[in-house]
């Protein structure tokens, strides 16, 4: 996908000296990146694949494994944790939709309506990024306090008869999805902002001149033109949300009944010390995301925008 973006550049077909030199410089510039990727991505990925096929050392201690080709690891985890995997994608997808519904109008307001007031625009952008100044764990913990059974949110809602007396928010799917959406809204808003900020408003005028009411203009003109932002925003939200293990953890906004695949991987690695299961789950998560994302990108017809 991303390779396409580079394929138009000088491909080194020309053989004259300056071209050769510039391609050598290009390689030299790419070297640190390539080294970094080999060291911190290819090697660990290889090790992860190796681990996912390991088997227990006969008569060994807990957490002692040897290299093998035990593909049953995969079928076992799918049987044991299929529900968690499904839940992860469901939660992540719901949170992504919510973040899009909140992030799009926000980005539109900042990128289009505030265009004439550069100072206000920068201020609004700072406000979008402001939550990053505080640790993500602290912010999630703060929400746990706010949404807790003793918190004012629950109390108010119960007083207003909006919630039955025995209701909880923390520990339910609602609070986990809420937490995911909340934590990833900036990742949704910023790419949307960059495309909306460049949106040519003369095209919107052309739409209304050609008998399209504001809603139709939005659907037929604004949305297609801001598709690159929608794609990158949803990907930047969906991918990390699907693998997130903080919001859904019982220590934060979730409970055991809301455990996502990230929580399962975490407990297999750190608590159960079942490294092969944790590794195979990680690889399953990775490949499902890869398949979903490429199908999504292909369907939106924006391969060359990535």
């Amino acid at each position, binding site marked *: 996908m991303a390779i396409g973006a580079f394929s138009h550049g000088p491909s080194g077909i020309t053989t004259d000296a300056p071209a050769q030199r510039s391609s050598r410089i290009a390689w030299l510039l790419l070297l640190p990146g390539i080294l970094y990727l080999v060291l911190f991505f290819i090697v660990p990925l290889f090790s992860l694949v190796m681990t996912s096929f390991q088997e227990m050392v006969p008569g060994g201690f807990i957490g002692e494994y040897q290299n093998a080709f035990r593909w049953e690891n995969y079928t076992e985890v799918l049987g044991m944790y299929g529900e968690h995997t499904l839940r992860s994608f469901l939660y992540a997808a719901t949170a992504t939709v919510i973040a899009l519904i909140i992030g799009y109008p926000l980005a539109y307001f900042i990128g289009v309506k505030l265009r004439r007031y550069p100072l206000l625009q920068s201020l609004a952008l700072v406000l979008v990024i402001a939550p990053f100044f505080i640790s993500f764990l602290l912010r999630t913990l703060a929400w746990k306090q706010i949404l807790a059974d003793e918190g004012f949110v629950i109390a108010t809602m119960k007083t207003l008869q909006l919630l039955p007396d025995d209701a909880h928010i923390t520990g339910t799917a609602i609070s986990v999805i809420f937490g995911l959406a909340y934590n990833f809204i900036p990742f949704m808003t910023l790419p949307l902002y960059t495309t909306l900020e460049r949106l040519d408003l003369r095209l919107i005028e052309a739409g209304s001149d*050609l008998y399209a009411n504001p809603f139709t203009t939005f659907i037929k*003109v604004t949305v297609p033109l801001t598709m690159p932002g929608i794609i990158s925003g949803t990907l930047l939200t969906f991918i990390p949300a699907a693998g997130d293990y903080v919001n859904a953890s019982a220590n934060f906004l979730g409970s055991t009944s809301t455990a996502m695949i990230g929580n399962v991987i975490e407990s297999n690695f750190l608590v159960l010390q079942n490294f092969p299961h944790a590794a195979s789950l990680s690889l399953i998560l990775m490949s499902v995301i890869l398949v979903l994302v490429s199908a999504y990108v292909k369907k939106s017809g924006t391969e060359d925008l990535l």
Partner: protein
Amino acid sequence: MVAEVSGRGFAQSGADLELVNVSKRYPGFTAVDDLSLTIPAGSFFALLGPSGCGKTTTLRLIAGLEEPSAGTILVGGKDITATKAYQRPVNTVFQSYALFPHMTILENVAFGLKRRKIADPIKLATEALELVELGHLAQRKPQQLSGGQQQRVALARAVVNRPALLLLDEPLGALDLKLRRQMQLELKAIQSEVGLTFLHVTHDQEEAMTMADTVAVMNKGKIEQMGAPAELYELPFTRFVATFLGQSNLFDGVVTGQNDGTLTVAVGSENLLVPSSRSQISAGAITVGVRPEKLEIHREAPKAAAGRQIVGPGTVSDTSFAGVSTQYVVQVPVLGDITVFEQNDGDIVGVGEQVWLSWSVDHAFGIPVEETFDENDLSTRALAATVK
């Protein structure tokens, strides 16, 4: 001629456009100042003026892209002031073309038809593309087309809707001279073919004069003068029209007498004659003007003749040869620099030579005295000057 102006369905013909006391005020300045204007159905009307004169704002008010601060806009006798842009039976060819980059040419042209649920939009759009000779490019994207082709797509996209009124916002501005001339002819041909009312906004006086039936010269949010191009050119009513539309030699003086339908104007120690029927002023301060091509240049003092104004002798201070004609600047005592365009008859007067000038009194015109407007205001002129 009653046109369909409901916003749905095709207009069978163009519709009258009427602006009644329309104003558009922004904080600190007035873009359009109490403008009243009637454009008859089926005509090709040009709104001509320098940038910042309010012509584009006027167009946007008619299109519904801006709301007037005061006044009424009527199309085909129906008040559309309160309606939204998408409800108006009006289409615009934008200066930037504003083609949708994510759609093919055909989809761009079919856009308006689809919104109005017209039957068989693809067939009509294809026909419109044939009209502008771009049928073969229907499946391309706008950015794959040249500027001239994009301009024609923008035109097809607007014309295909058969609007009661078509607005053109300097659509030829981005084209080079040769293509512009060609597009001017094509536009004119399309207009007479489809019989729509065209309102063309431009700062190019030549474009306005060649294309339009009626030209309105606009300055500072007001219309200075309106009429057929030749009328405006031959008999300007204001200093602005006299200088913005072509060139004029202008002399400030005072009316000293009138006899037999002719005013005598004293400019310093010189006396100039102006037919009173061609003068906006009949007494007091006056500016007398005459177009440079109406002047004749003589090496020897011409004999005085009735109805002929003779001035001189003066000295030729500049000669520039422009092919079909030669432009002279002649310094005449009292009157100052006078510009003369003379057809190229092979005899070019050299710089420094002593000459006399003459013109038919019937070509002179009288206008109110006004402050010389700042030529730098006119970005077009400024641009032209920089190019020179």
